[in-house]
Each structure stands twice: as C-alpha cells, then as structure tokens.
C-alpha cells in the first residue's frame, strides 16, 4: 500500500473493523464480561472460569472454553507470553474511552467541544507518526506484546505497528519521582491488587490523543489502567482518567477486552516510510501554516 493517505486510511479502517462498534455511543454495554458491572468497579480478583470473556463486539462468535489464566510459580498471573510456549500478542481492544457513556463523562466545556471537533477533524497525532501513550497503545490493529522481565522487575508493553516503540512499566515498588519530565508515554508504575495489575501513569505530555477519536487530556492527567487476564485468551482492560485540566471529576471507562493472539510475533512497522509529505509527517497544510518554521 503506497502513499501516506492510503496508508493512514488503511490503518484507520483496520482499527474500525477490528474493534467492532466504533464511536457510536448507543448500544453500550453489550458483551461485557459477566459481572463486570458499571463504571468505577475495579476488576477484582480475576475472572476464573467466566465464560463471558469474549467481550465487546470483537465479531469472533461464541468462544470455546478457554484455558485458564497461566501463572508464574509464585501464583501471579502471566500477562504476556508463557515460557515453553510460542510467544503471543494482544490484539487491539480499546476503541474510544467514552464508549457507552459519552454524555455522562464529566467533560469541562472546552474538552467536550474539542472532542466534538475531533470527531469531524479526525486528524490524530498517531497517524502522523507521533508516539501516543497509555490507552492509545491498545488501539492499533496488531496490538501489543507484553514482555515481562522478572529479573529487572519490569514489564515492557511493545507496540506492534504504530510507533514501533516500547513503554516501560516499573514493577519494583518505586514511587513517582518529584519532577517527571513530560513524555508521550509517561512514567508508569505497576502494582498488583490480587490478580489485577494496576498501572498508574503520570508525566504525560499533550502531544497525542488518548484514543483514536481524540478524548482530550492535559498534562495534569493521572491515568490508571487495570489489567486482568481473566483466562488464557482474554485481558480485561479498564482505565480511570483523573485530569482536573480537562474534566470536572475523575471518571472510569467501561471494560474492554484484548484478545490473545498465539504465535503472533512482533514485526517491524515504520510509520515514517512513505510519509515524507508535509501532509502527514509535519501536519496537513490546513493544520500547519508556517507555525513551526524551524523544522527540521
């Protein structure tokens, strides 16, 4: 597929088909894992044996009973590939953060207006090869791979596609540093609550969108993700957005489900390939008008 426009269109389309219901906020709540409840409920102690693991509109039909959650010798769930088995990846699963509850989100007026404009504009930084943090990592078509490195007390969330980059989740019990330089992926620290990995991220800059449709945020954002591998094939994902710069109160998303893709290996995807035109690499001609004249 040649040419920046068709490439971008291809990606957008692929996300739409993979992720089912796309930015249509009616029809909320179908296919949620049984018992997951409404927003604000922590995922709790895993989902052993819950057959509802197929989650939201993935379009894969009824799931055969899945193998149970794989575990390390100490009993903790294995979130990534299982030693002794082929590696695997997690397909995309997060569509838009406000899924199913757009009108209940406590937007500040400017944030709701920005969201509305972005539905029309749809010109997101990710398409322009900008690394896009936290929830956006789980919206690219080929998803991610979770690479656990117990020796180094950390986990990497590797992009498969998109910016072809890596996010570090520290699992060594550290606290957030005093002054966190703002970055596209932020500073992430994880801890376990039962079988759920709770990842807190701060230090996110404002140079990306949280999801494919532009749910807004500011650098005051504290983003909490809850990941629970309910069975071998399913990762339940839920996020809490605490951003006093854009919202009048913290709010929590619905549950999303990421689907395990056994045998999926990471491959190389370089967004900048064929993206030399000002339209995608530097921004569209409409968007950018000699504002950043010192590039490169």
């Amino acid at each position, binding site marked *: 597929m040649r040419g920046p426009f068709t490439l971008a269109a291809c990606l957008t389309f692929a996300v739409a088909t993979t992720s089912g219901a796309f930015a249509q906020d009616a029809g909320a709540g179908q296919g949620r894992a049984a018992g997951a409840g409404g927003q604000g409920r922590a995922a709790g102690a895993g989902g052993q044996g819950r057959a509802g693991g197929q989650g939201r509109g993935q379009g894969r039909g009824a799931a055969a009973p899945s193998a149970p959650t794989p575990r390390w010798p100490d009993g903790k769930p294995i979130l990534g590939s299982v030693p002794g088995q082929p590696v695997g990846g997690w397909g995309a699963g997060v569509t838009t953060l406000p899924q199913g509850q757009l009108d209940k989100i406590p937007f500040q007026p400017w944030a709701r207006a920005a969201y509305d404009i972005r539905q029309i504009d749809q010109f997101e930084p990710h398409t322009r090869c900008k690394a896009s943090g936290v929830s956006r990592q789980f919206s690219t078509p080929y998803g991610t791979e979770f*690479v656990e490195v117990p020796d180094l007390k950390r986990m990497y969330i*590797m992009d498969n596609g998109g910016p*072809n980059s890596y996010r570090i989740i520290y699992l060594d019990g550290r606290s957030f540093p005093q002054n966190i*330089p703002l970055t596209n992926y932020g500073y992430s620290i994880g801890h376990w609550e039962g079988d759920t990995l709770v990842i807190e991220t701060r230090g996110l800059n404002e140079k990306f969108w949280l999801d494919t449709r532009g749910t807004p945020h500011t650098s005051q954002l504290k983003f909490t993700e809850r990941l629970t591998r309910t069975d071998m094939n399913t990762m339940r994902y839920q996020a809490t957005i605490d951003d006093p710069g854009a919202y009048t109160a913290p709010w929590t998303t619905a549950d999303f489900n990421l689907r395990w893709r056994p045998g999926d290996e990471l491959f190389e995807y370089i967004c900048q390939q064929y993206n030399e035109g000002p339209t995608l690499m530097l*921004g569209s001609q409409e968007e950018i008008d000699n504002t950043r004249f*010192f590039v490169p």
Partner: protein
Amino acid sequence: MFDRHTRSRHDLRQPILEAGEELMTKRAVVAVMLTVAVGVVSLGAQHTLAAKFDVTKPLTLTGTVTQIDWANPYVHILMKVPGQPLPALWAVEVEGPIVLTDNGWSQASLPIGETIRVEGYAARDGSRQISGRSVVMTSTNKPVYVGTNGTPKARRVATGPTPRWPSGQPRLGPPPGETGYWGYPTRGGLLEDGVNVQMDRYGLLNNVADASKVAPMQPWALSLYRERQRTFLQRDPMYLWCKPPGGPRQFQQPYGFQFVEQPDFKRVFVLMGSANRNRRIIYTDGRKQVGQVNGNDDNPVFYGQAVARWEGDTFVVDTRSFNEEFWFDNGGLPHTEQLHLIERFTRTDMGTMRYEVTIDDPGAYTRAWKSTWNLNWVPGEETPYFLCMDNRP
C-alpha cells in the same frame, strides 16, 4: 560541554578527545572557543551544525524572548527582533533538552520577556533562524544555554568484570535488579579499521578529499558519498523525515540503546534511545532470515532480519534484508539491498562493549570491510527520552 559549534570543516584544530577515544593525529591548534572538559557530560544528538547553518555567514542579533520550545532534537528560543513595520520572530537553535538538562539548564533558566544577544550562524535556507553559538542575557550579561550552569552532572561510568548469567555467558544488559544503557560511542561515523581520517561526531569529514579513503567504495557509491559530504549531510533522511538509523548507525548514537535478553524465548530486544525509540528483535533460536511473520514476507526492512549466536564471549549478529530508504551510517556512506552485516559484540568489562561490524555489500563496496569502536555502559539510567519528531506539530 561538547557542542556542535566546536567542530567545523573550516577550522584547523586539534581533534577533541572524549573519554576512551584515542588521539588519531596532532594538528596545529588555533585559538577557538573550545568548551571541552575532562569528564564531559554528554554529547549532542542528531546532526552536524553545518547541515543547517552556514558557518561562513556569522550573525549577531538582539531580541526579546517570546517562547522557549523545550523539545527534541534541539531547543529553540523564539525571539522578537525589532524591525519595521513589525518586529520579526526569529528562532535560535541551541542544544537539545537532554544535553541542556545534563549541563544544569532548564526551561526556567531564561525567563520569557528577557532580552538576549545571540551570536551564531545564519540558516542555509535563508529562513529566520540562527544557531546559538553564544546566547547572553543582557540584564545579567551572563550566558544561558551555552556551556554549563554551575557544576554539570557527572557522567556515570561503570567498572568491574563482565557480568554473567549463571551459565557463565556474558550479560548484554544489566545485572539483575539494576538498569543501564549503552551509549557514548567512541566513533560517530563508519571508517575502515586502520585508516586515518578525521571526521566529527556526526560523521562529517574534516576534509572531503579524504572521502575515497573512508571505505572501499565502488565509483557510484564514492560519488554519492562525496556529494552527501560536500552538501554537509543536509539530505539525511533521519534529519529530514526521522527515518530510522538502521544497521550500524543505531550504534553511533550518543543516546544509545538497551539490550533486553529473554533466554526463555530465545530472543534479544534492542530498545533504542535514539531516533524514535524504536524496538527490534535479534533472534537466537536458529531460525532462517526469511522475512516477517505478518505480511511482507522477505520484504526488505529498515532494521533488517537479525539472527545471532554466541562464539565464546562474543555475541555474533548476522543481519540482512535491508531496504535502501535510510542511511546506515551517520556520515552518509551508501548501502544497497545486498547489505549483509556481521556484528560482533564483546563486553570486555562491566562498562565497555566492543563493537566490530563487517560490512559485506557487493552492491556498493568492492570488498567486505570492518569498522570497530566501543560503546560505554551508563549504569542506573534508562535510555534518555528522545523522539526525533518531538518538535514537529
């Protein structure tokens, strides 16, 4: 602080020494603004000054600071320069945020509204840009963003024997419970071992006439290399469009990379601190280099298909299937899709990784040839956060 202004093809000067670097030749020293200190903190990233600025066109400007764009690859001070009918907005390019921070500067070092006097060089393309060779706040008459602010952060070095796995195999990454990355390469551009030619940290030759000595190029490749050098590496795809530093180039970058070994899955990740924080995999499971799993079988890629094995204490990586859409060397040495690399990594001690690359590209070179340099371990730190496109809208 090693800054881009201390290297220019138009000056005769003594080569600048870095910790661990050997003195290649001696030359007459000309009085020039050298700001090197022993135990220098960190290197600038990206590209040679001459690519963007014309060192034969010095410029001095005075203006009011309007905004500071604190972003990679270089911080820019936007300043208002008086003029008619309205003042003009100029951009002053100084070092990148990682280097500035390491040298004690921050965004707050230069308050908005201050007046500054800037000396530097004009941009080649005639745009309103100036390199910040000297930036002085007129209210204090003190420099800002050039040199160090107070005592610079000392560079961390590591000593001690090579760390090993229980099996005895050397660790390419940190010992358990620690972190670190490989950076501060002792070479900035490919140069055939045994050849004596001067080039700067970014691969720009001191003397373009030396081009033919750098590597055994075929005539078309030598012409292309000369042209790239003659035009100060301006058309570098990494500089213009942030294309990846495939091949040896990723090991020429100061912000380096991490190796993350996963013996359980017979693979080693390379996590980069340069370019766009890309990740790639080197497989040690004995597979053939047959292309990517998802689509594009055998399609040549930027980082190639890499497989590796151990030979004693040396990690030997074999990579092929490169495309031709990038530069595999800071200095612009050409390559073709026939490029086949053998890279030998030997961790001679805790702090040192010897890197030897054999370039076998019958499309561009008349024979295989080797280049060798060292990488230095930076203990206790992650790869600096650098995104090539940080300052692009």
